[in-house]
């Protein structure tokens, strides 16, 4: 029972409110930035202090919020969300910094929304109460609605409306699903509860679980997004301001898939197992489809957009392989994808500024010449994105694939084609912007200090994780395994009878494979 998480959670919002109401906007933007730094500092301490031995929640805050509905203000951190929280903290710093040094109309509103968004995202990662999760999940949309609609480019209002309606369509269905889950799992005479731990203990008939899982999947697949629910992607990505887009694609997209691990698998194992095949098919299809479209795009934003459809496909594949390796891979891959997408979009920003704002591959090229630093940063990020061995993404992908092979070999093999395609579109992306003959409007300049300060730290983190991915794995291992164990049991009692970990080599022949 600590208050730490609440502090972390509301620090940005509080700073923004104070700044918006009391301070001039120049001071206010710095205050918001300071708040993001504060969150980061807090999270770093948490990372150091985190007890990787325990599979349970840590720094738990658990207060009654709405007793009538059984909704509790319940926050907690375990290996599963620790690094997603860290990702959020890390991602917000450069994006805020990036914005601090640029001019916006109505800056106060801009930074207020930015901060509100961070609070909402942190909240949805920390929430240990289903209803609370839903609250934050939907709340996220408000700031992003304003950010996209207010400071976007092109047909921004249409884009943001489409984005919000599309996403909320999913998450309202999830709301219905959540309520249904809470209500239907309540034992006769028992008090309704939405605490995820409690829901995990209570049970519902597998029939019920199945349609509820579908409702949740609707929300999460739209959020991710996965084929064919990605209809909002093109317009939104085109018109979202870049730092916001970095957050949208780098962090928000993870909330959905995270929801699968946090909520769906533990509370509705039968349901999840029942749709395993379907969801894996969706995931694999998204991988191939996203990749295929990623290298047929001309707009750089869309290249990344579709590439992240493919990436999220991988993550989903890992989760629904219902195998510890796969789930672990999914967890670390969520972090990695966030870590590479954020700098990618910031780099896109730099590139566009070198080409009079043009963001189409056909007009770009040859920027590397007088921008070696930029090129280096970019090449590292691209290699990480295409999951080059030695990058953290490789660890994620190999674990995901191993998990998939373990249970669904055929799909795993198909999915591994995605790795090759990733190489194609990322290298194409890199070459068409940095290499070849310079585009018409391109004048090559290297990154200036501020942009470097925003991008370089992220790249450093990527490299560090590439050297020592175990840093993530051994903290998240226990929690992740625990989350999927239920569904795993449903799937193959054998796998769970076996003590996870070392398998004696000799007895291998008589271990029946699931």
């Amino acid at each position, binding site marked *: 029972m600590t208050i730490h998480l609440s502090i972390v959670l509301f620090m940005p919002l509080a700073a923004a409110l104070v700044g918006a109401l009391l301070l001039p906007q120049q001071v206010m933007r710095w205050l918001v930035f300071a708040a993001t730094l504060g969150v980061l500092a807090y999270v770093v301490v948490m990372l150091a202090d985190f007890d990787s031995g325990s599979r349970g929640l840590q720094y738990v805050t658990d207060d009654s919020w709405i007793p009538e509905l059984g909704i509790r203000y319940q926050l907690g951190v375990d290996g599963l969300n620790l690094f997603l929280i860290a990702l959020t903290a890390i991602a917000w710093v450069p994006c805020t910094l990036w914005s601090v040094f640029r001019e916006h109309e109505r800056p106060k509103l801009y930074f207020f929304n930015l901060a509100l968004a961070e609070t909402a995202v942190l909240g949805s990662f920390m929430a240990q109460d289903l209803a609370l999760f839903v609250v934050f999940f939907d709340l996220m949309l408000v700031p992003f609605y304003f950010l996209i609609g207010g400071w976007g480019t092109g047909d921004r209002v249409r884009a943001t409306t489409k984005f919000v309606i599309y996403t909320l369509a999913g998450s309202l269905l999830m709301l219905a699903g959540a309520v249904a889950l809470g209500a239907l799992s309540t034992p006769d005479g028992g008090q309704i509860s939405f605490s995820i731990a409690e829901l995990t203990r209570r049970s519902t008939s597998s029939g019920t679980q199945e349609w509820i899982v579908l409702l949740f999947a609707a929300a999460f697949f739209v959020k991710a997004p996965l084929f064919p629910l990605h209809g909002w992607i093109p317009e939104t990505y085109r018109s979202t301001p870049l730092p916001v887009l970095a957050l949208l694609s780098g962090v928000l997209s993870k909330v959905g898939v995270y929801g699968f691990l946090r909520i769906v698998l533990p509370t509705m194992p039968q349901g999840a197992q029942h749709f395993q095949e379907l969801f894996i098919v969706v995931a694999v299809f998204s991988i191939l489809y996203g990749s295929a479209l990623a290298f047929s795009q001309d707009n750089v934003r869309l290249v990344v957009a579709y590439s992240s459809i493919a990436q999220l496909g991988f993550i989903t594949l890992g989760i629904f392989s219902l195998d510890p390796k796969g789930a672990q891979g999914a967890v670390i891959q969520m972090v990695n994808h966030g870590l590479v997408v954020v700098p990618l979009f910031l780099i896109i920003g730099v590139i566009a500024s070198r080409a009079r704002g043009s963001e189409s591959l056909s007009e770009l090229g040859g920027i590397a010449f007088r921008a070696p630093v930029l090129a280096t940063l970019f090449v590292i990020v691209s290699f990480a994105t295409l999951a080059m061995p030695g990058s953290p993404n*490789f660890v994620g992908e190999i674990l995901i694939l191993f998990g998939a*092979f373990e249970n669904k070999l055929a799909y795993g093999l198909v999915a591994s084609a995605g790795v*090759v395609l990733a190489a194609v579109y990322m290298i194409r992306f890199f070459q068409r912007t940095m290499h070849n003959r310079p585009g018409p409007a391109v004048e090559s300049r290297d990154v200036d200090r501020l942009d470097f300060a925003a991008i370089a730290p992220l790249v450093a983190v990527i490299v560090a994780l590439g050297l020592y991915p175990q840093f993530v794995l051994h903290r998240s291992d226990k929690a992740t395994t625990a989350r999927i164990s239920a569904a795993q049991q449903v799937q193959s009692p054998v796998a769970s009878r076996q003590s996870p970990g*070392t398998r004696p080599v000799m007895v291998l022949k008589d271990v029946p494979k699931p």
Partner: protein
Amino acid sequence: MDAISFGWLVLSFPVAGMLTVSLLWNRLPGRLGGWIASGAILGSFLSSIGMFVDLQDRPEHARSLVDSAWTYAATVDFKVDMSILVDPLAVFMCLVVSGVSFLIHVYSVAYMASDRGYSRYFAYLNYFVFSMLLLVLAGNFVVLIIGWAFVGAASYLLISFWYRRATATYAGIKAFVINVVGDVGLVIAAFLLLDKTGSLDYRGIFQATDNVFRVDDGTLVAACLLILLGAFAKSAQLPLHTWLPDAMEGPTPVSALIHAATMVTAGVYLIARMHPLFEMAPTAADVSAIIGTATLLFAATVAVAVTDLKRIIAYSTISQIGYMVLGVSVAAYGPGLFHLMTHAFFKALLFMGAGSVIGAMSAAQSIDRMGGFRKAMPFTFVTFTVGALALAGFPLTAGFFSKDEILGFAIARGSGYVVLAVVGYLAAFVTAFYAFRMVFRVFFRNAVPEARELEKGHLAHHEPENPASGEKEDTDVGFPGPEHHIAERSWPMKAAMGPLALLAALAGLVQVPGIDEAVDKFLEPTFADSRYADVHPSTGTEWTELGIGGLLGIAGIGLAYLIYLRRRSLRLQIRERFDALHTFLFNKWYFDELYELLFTRPVAALGRFGRNVVETDFVQGTIVGGATGVVRVGSSFARAIQTGYLRGYALMLLVGVGALALYFLISSS
């Protein structure tokens, strides 16, 4: 210091060099960057020697050491350390790699002197050497895959080093993608092995192999074939060879280092490293042997037809690697790796010579435009010829011992392998022929203008243009610098080529059948467990086989002499006689066109289909459009009945009552 610490040292030198050069990229004066990089590699070479010495002091059985720095990744059923394995094979590779790399670095210091990307070049080069060493020192599959991919990345960066050339960037992406295909193969193989043996460490796997698998166990064969996929992608064996000729877009030293001496031979190393698996899965081994043979013949034939100097050597490389693959697949590990070493020497040498010539031609690469450089570039001529002799397997040169020994082993295996050996001999003849086709057409016959100009003491200089596409280039934006460098004029190039020439000529003597078989002996501990350890041709037969090889080599040289110097008309007659064959060979058996048809076009078409059809019609049209359409229709309906006519509303009310009452009446009865 024991071998392991030396091993880590081997790895750390290039890393240090890379970091220094890249971080100080704009502060290093003159050629300092190059020298730093070379120094770093020299450092790893010396540490490799350190390893070598230390291993020699140990008893035979204790010559395989493993050490892990930290846990890389671990979860349920999955544990990988950042570990290296030091054993004779690894040390052997380290020596070859770091040694040759060092010389090529030195060569580059001069060759790349005037290039815009001088520091970048050496940073990449160091990065490559580090990756290569990591690959050979890797102690488990994951580290291997990391090194494997790193060399791929380095090769990509260096192929498209002159990134303003569309041809270069295209070649780069081609090479990278094919390599990634190989990586995926390795990953899947790794999974199969982990799944069965429960380990990813070489030792764990090899120990488990005998217990877990039967001979030719299905899973094992699959795993080995996937490993071969990786190996062949790297080593440019059929059908994954197409990237290597294009890789010649990179600077010539790069071709020498990566695409001749070291990286492309990684596949051979891999097969040798995995020999316990392959010996347990003979089917896979045979597949590999057959493909190797096919490749060596195919590449040799192409090398006869193509006219681009570097590409000739590239195909020759493919062919030579074919020999090595054949060797290690028929359990001729010693000879295979020996050939790897000698080939590294003479092929690097050939490329260096080619680079020098190209410098003299000011970047022109077609041998049709060359000739008569004998007088103009004596040093290059001599060294290049030595290299060619070694390649042709001229008696007592390095190639002579190594190549023919492989074939000898194949014959010793008997049965079908004899056929492979015969093909190998045939190709050896062709090899000798095209090797000297180069020599005669470049250095003999009457001198081309560039040559004469050079004899006058002036290095020719044309408007720089892309040798492949012929488009003009502006040298001030990152193309090979304004001036060119030839061995005759810059001592570092000489300093690099000289030793290599010696090695190409004499290295064979370390492995003379019956007299000293140093390589075999040194590698003994690694392959002690081989079940073909006793398969070994007797010294006598071996000498006869060497003899046959030597004679074929001389014959090939003779034929080349006949066609290209003695009776020039003959060449044209032959070409007219076998026109179809010539075009077929000249177009490299149309492999590129085939792949274009099979993969590139379909995937691109798929992408376009997705973008233009699925996105617009299904995702936006059906799903989004459908929903909005329904809503729109509904709202227009709601408005349509909202006529504003009071009586209309009354009617609606009446209808409502009627319906409600009706429902109740029905439900009641």
